């Protein structure tokens, strides 16, 4: 059959992930080998990388200690820029998370089978990104050990306070914590059959106990699968509106205020498109590295990456269109403040941030119109990184430029981050990458049971197409 494939490159397209992985057992081996290998045999470069990222996480810890010890004045937030890097980074990380849910839920509902090779790692990435995001709302309170009382409606006798449910900030608390919880449940549900595989293959007592407990006694009974598939469908169906709601509600933090540059109805869809755009770019960055270091080329193929690039192109264009609409409405509304804010964004003191954003978000994804560039690993690696640089700048531009010119010129200001701001943000990347590296090494990075399910149906299609080609 491999000869037929070589002679007919069109067949490679029919069956992207599975041409080179002939049977179930090989597939199990390939994916679990990464998880099961002895610690001593893990390549040295893995431990070195983990050491570096763990050290960067240490910087994050240190910065948070300094912050709590001295108070949030350690950040560069000032008047009038009362919201700055803290919320920029929060929105940035939350946005990154959106790709995971999109892949696991929305692409599932659209029956995009190619998602099975990438959904597990994208979902894990979602969880880790939301953890990084959660640091900011938690620590901006200054006293994170009391934050639970301020953020969640917990009956309390010392403060005797309740949250104000008319505030979009409390909506955000509910949106983000629900998002994290539901993503975690979805991820774990998908993981259970694979944990059972690891349990059944475990060679040491410790592994048997750990994977035995985590897999909850899963035995792959037909009755299990019937409920499981239903549960998966329901989780996908409720996660789809959830993922759209989360960034919409994040955008309400801005849109419900009366600040020029924030008070616009375009924000919810614009934020959601931006979130998916940045999230896919982050998945792309991580997958290119993982695919190369863990030799997963047969499971994560160029076709997968190309499909993702198409989504990046689409959402990137939506984001570019939203920038244009914002500018048009600022002019068309005839509102002096609105008009000033937008001209000031592009040509005021933060012009460099604005044009970095436009270059990275509007211009760079357009390269993906060309099939050659869409299928080139170096190109997509660079563009995935510039996308995230651009998306970080987008949030910074929206937040800082709208605030630094207050209504009265006497209250104008400028925001500069402190070194604590910068080191904290740098540290969140350490946390994100450390968690991702641990996940990639110790849990199955590709959804084994889902890929096998696709393998079965694709094998049939493949057989019928191959026979057709041969008979011709």
């Amino acid at each position: 059959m491999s000869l037929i494939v070589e002679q007919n490159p069109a067949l490679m397209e029919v069956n992207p992930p599975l041409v080179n992985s002939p049977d179930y057992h090989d597939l199990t081996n390939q994916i679990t080998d990464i998880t099961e290998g002895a610690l001593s045999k893990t390549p040295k470069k893995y431990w070195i990388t983990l050491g570096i990222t763990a050290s960067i996480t240490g910087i994050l810890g240190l910065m948070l200690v300094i912050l709590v010890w001295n108070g949030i004045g350690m950040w560069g937030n000032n008047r009038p820029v009362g919201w700055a890097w803290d919320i920029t980074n929060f929105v940035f990380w939350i946005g990154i998370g959106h790709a995971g849910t999109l892949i696991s839920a929305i692409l599932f509902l659209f029956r995009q089978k190619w998602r099975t090779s990438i959904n597990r790692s994208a979902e894990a990435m979602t969880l880790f990104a939301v953890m990084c995001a959660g640091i900011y709302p938690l620590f901006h309170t200054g006293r994170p050990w009391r934050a639970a009382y301020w953020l969640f409606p917990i009956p309390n006798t010392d403060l005797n306070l309740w949250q104000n449910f008319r505030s979009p900030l409390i909506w955000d608390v509910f949106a983000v914590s629900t998002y994290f919880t539901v993503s975690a449940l979805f991820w774990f549900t998908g993981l259970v059959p694979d944990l059972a595989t690891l349990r059944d293959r475990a060679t040491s007592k410790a592994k048997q106990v750990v994977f035995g407990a985590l897999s909850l006694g899963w035995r792959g009974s037909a009755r299990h699968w019937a409920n499981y598939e239903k549960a998966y469908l329901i989780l996908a169906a409720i996660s789809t509106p959830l993922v759209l709601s989360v960034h919409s509600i994040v955008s309400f933090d801005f849109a419900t205020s009366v600040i020029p540059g924030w008070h616009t109805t375009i924000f919810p869809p614009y934020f959601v498109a931006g979130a998916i755009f940045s999230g896919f770019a982050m998945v792309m960055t991580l997958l290119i590295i993982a695919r190369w270091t863990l030799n997963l080329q047969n499971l994560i193929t160029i076709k997968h990456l190309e499909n993702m690039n198409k989504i990046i192109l689409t959402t990137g264009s939506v984001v570019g269109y939203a920038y244009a609409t914002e500018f048009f409405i600022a002019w068309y509304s005839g509102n002096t403040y609105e008009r000033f804010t937008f001209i000031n964004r592009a040509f005021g003191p933060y012009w460099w941030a604005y044009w970095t954003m436009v270059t990275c978000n509007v211009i760079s994804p357009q390269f993906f119109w060309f099939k050659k560039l869409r299928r080139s690993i170096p190109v997509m690696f660079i563009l995935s990184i510039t996308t995230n640089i651009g998306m970080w700048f987008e949030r910074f531009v929206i937040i800082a430029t709208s605030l630094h010119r207050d209504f009265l010129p006497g209250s104008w200001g400028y925001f500069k981050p402190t070194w604590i701001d910068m080191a904290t943000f740098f540290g969140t990347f350490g946390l994100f990458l450390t968690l991702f590296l641990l996940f990639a090494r110790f849990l199955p990075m590709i959804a084994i049971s889902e890929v096998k399910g696709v393998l079965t149906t694709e094998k049939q299609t493949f057989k019928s197409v191959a026979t057709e080609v041969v008979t011709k």
Partner: protein
Amino acid sequence: MNAGELREKLGLGEDKAWAVVGKFSDPHELVDAGRKIKEMGYTKLDAMSPFPVHGIDDAIGVPPSKLGWRVVWCSAAGAATALLLIWWVGAVNYPLNIGGKPLFDFTYSIPVTFELTVLFSAFGTFLGMFGMNGLPKLYHPAFRYKHTHRASDDSFLLVIEADDPRFDPEKSVEHMKSVGAADVEVVVG
């Protein structure tokens, strides 16, 4: 301590047969065999597979999952909790006049109500699915079949449970072999 010693210590009797289990290496063979076994009149059948095999539910008579309705009730509970919380906190326990805005209104309650509806549904789905599957479970006789560990890898097992009125250790083994199963065994536990 092995299973035998444990049984003695706990004062349990001899193991009863749990089922006759046979192994297949292809999902389509499993479905075909399952259908044939069902046609022989068996009613208590099960299958074990590394991924959901399509068509097996019809072939061996697994009823469709009833999870959906339970989740609907959870969603309703989530929405009700959110609305009651917002109303009670804002209009009863801690009324706070902010710019003359109403103390309770459906419009600004939408985001939190939506989120709690989703949250409750997700917990309902998650706990409901594992609950209906009888998980977590520390022990199941299925794990005493010698190839069960491969049912999460590349094997497809067909199970005739001992509760089945037509079950007979010898005849069922023959039936299982006749539909093409390999390594057919009576599993006790």
